[in-house]
């Protein structure tokens, strides 16, 4: 037997990545899923545009009445704001739909991507073609990632446009958990995360239904965790602290200050509010409640004209504090959240490719 020399690619031989043929191949294989995605996205986009047009006139009146100006006391503004609040149902439904969309993309595009090939055995066909299995899987995942990120980026941008009036009026805030994860930056990031999660779980399980179920649980679980706790922890990082005066309109509690309302912390995100006593120590929640009740009682006694909460608070040697994220940091935090999600997505996708390379 002659000596065996299993050489790799001879020096100088290059195998360029055939992007254009691979784009066609990906389209051929994912056509049904991609057409469905486009149809669903188009429907969502139409709903967003319709919703925005519905509140457009109302918002124009709000702006025309000068309600956006600082400290507007026009009673008309309150009425408009209330009407606005009544129209948030459609908006909320769309926000929920956009939360579900990345999970659906993970479940219906990511999870079957590899598991369908493994389950049906077609990997024995695709992985032995000239392209080679590593390049085949990498280019397919990359092309799908670009496609779903582009679609969800547009949807995120549209939702931001729809959300803006609500943000200005103060009914919603772009910082709050629901909206923070559905912007033009974070929505594609969540989508890529779900897509990569599905791809990895599909590679690990090799079963379509198992992969879809575990992807729904994992990606959905992460999204719910972000909604309930992760976002809040993220947005408390490096928060600024300020002593609040009553003029800021903030006493305590996690309330957001409407963007553009002209208050001191306009457009910022209130992380926490608290009260310190005469000794400079933070009051317990029970104590703070008691102080608040005493203040309200004093205000009531003093009558409407003489009421000055700030004067009462400082006269009794209390101080109100808030920690907050200034409005200017919004996109930094968006970038941080998106970078973390995309990094996880890249790790998941590369792990899947590594498993596929090792397989056999």
């Amino acid at each position: 037997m002659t000596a065996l020399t299993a050489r790799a690619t001879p020096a100088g031989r290059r195998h360029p990545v055939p992007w254009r043929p691979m784009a066609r191949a990906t389209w051929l294989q994912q056509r049904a899923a991609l057409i469905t995605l486009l149809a669903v996205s188009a429907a969502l986009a139409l709903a967003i545009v319709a919703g925005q047009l519905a509140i457009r006139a109302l918002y124009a009146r709000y702006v025309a009445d000068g309600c956006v100006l600082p400290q507007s006391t026009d009673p008309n503004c309150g009425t408009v704001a209330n009407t606005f609040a009544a129209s948030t149902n459609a908006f909320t439904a769309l926000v929920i739909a956009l939360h579900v969309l990345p999970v659906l993309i993970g479940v219906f595009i990511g999870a079957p991507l590899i598991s369908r090939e493994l389950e049906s055995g077609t990997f024995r066909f695709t992985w032995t073609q000239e392209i080679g299995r590593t390049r085949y899987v990498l280019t397919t995942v990359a092309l799908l990632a670009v496609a779903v990120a582009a679609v969800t980026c547009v949807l995120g941008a549209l939702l931001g446009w729809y959300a803006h009036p609500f943000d200005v009026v103060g009914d919603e805030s772009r910082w709050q958990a629901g909206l923070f994860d559905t912007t033009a930056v974070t929505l594609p990031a969540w989508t890529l995360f779900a897509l990569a999660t599905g791809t990895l779980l599909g590679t690990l399980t090799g079963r379509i239904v198992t992969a879809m179920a575990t992807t729904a649980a994992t990606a959905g679980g992460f999204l719910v965790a972000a909604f309930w706790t992760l976002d809040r922890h993220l947005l408390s990082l490096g928060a600024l602290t300020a002593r609040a005066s009553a003029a800021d309109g903030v006493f305590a509690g996690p309330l957001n200050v409407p963007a553009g309302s002209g208050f001191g912390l306009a457009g910022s995100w209130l992380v926490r509010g608290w009260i310190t006593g005469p000794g400079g120590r933070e009051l317990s929640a029970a104590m703070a409640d008691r102080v608040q009740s005493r203040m309200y009682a004093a205000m009531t006694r003093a009558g409407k004209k003489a009421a000055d909460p700030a004067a009462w608070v400082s006269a009794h040697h209390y101080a109100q504090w808030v920690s907050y994220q200034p409005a200017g940091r919004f996109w930094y935090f968006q970038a941080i959240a998106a970078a973390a999600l995309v990094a996880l997505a890249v790790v998941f996708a590369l792990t899947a490719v590594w498993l596929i390379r090792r397989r056999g």
Partner: protein
Amino acid sequence: MNVIETSGLGKRYRRTWGLRDCTLSIPAGHIVALVGPNGAGKTTLLHCSVGLATPTTGQVSVLGCLAAGSLDALERVAFVAQDAPLHSYLTVAAMLDLSRDLNRRFDRRHAEHRLRSLAIPLHPKVGKLSGGQHAQLALALALARHPDLLVLDEPLARLDPLARHDFLAHLMIAVAEDGLSVVFSSHVISELERVADYLVVLSAGRVQMAGAIDDLLARHRLLTGPAEQASRIGELFPVVQARPAGRSAELLVRAAEPAGPPGGWQASGVTLEELVLAYLRDPSVSVLPGPSALSAGTRHEVTR
């Protein structure tokens, strides 16, 4: 050049070995039949050769010295897996498109011409084709890549006799036209002789017999004679298989040259099926090319 060359090749699946210590060289320009019972390691050997399986031990190279499964190897080796898995949800035409997109060398017109001559339409879904059409489509896709080596895993397994006949006929025409080497595994021994000219018998994860079919047949004889003299024959020739048939005995022996049989014994040639079955019945017997077989090409050793 050897189209497949392995050295000490072994593949373990969890606890069991699918293939063990397999050293083999298959020369180019043949239609090679790889036979063996279920679980003998045929699929494992073929998967190792096309890069679908990674060897646990040893090495495997194809077409001279290309690492199995490397991009250079994939460019010149086409593989049709068992049951020819294709995308059942695509139409035949889309399947051709997909193959074109995954292979730079794919010759779409070649494939279309082949399908037209087989009267396989382009518009139905691949999943709607009959078993024979499905196998022919997989073969057409593989041949349109103009490979130097075509590897087929059990291409006949699910075909009815007519489809089997057609498939082999088309395979032979393609080989004659393109001059490629073919390695295919099969359970069906009876039809091999018509197509294959080189045989590899795998048994229990090891190579039991390998060589040109004519050569193997020429070196075996079926001796029939009195049962009581059977042990004497065993001293003269290596006996592959002894079959008592009443008062006479039938011995399949490895006869180095067509010397006349001892008195009272009749010698006859063996068929490929008899030969393969005899070896498969006793996995401890093997006939492999000797150490100098590649240069001499004739010497074979029987070990027991």
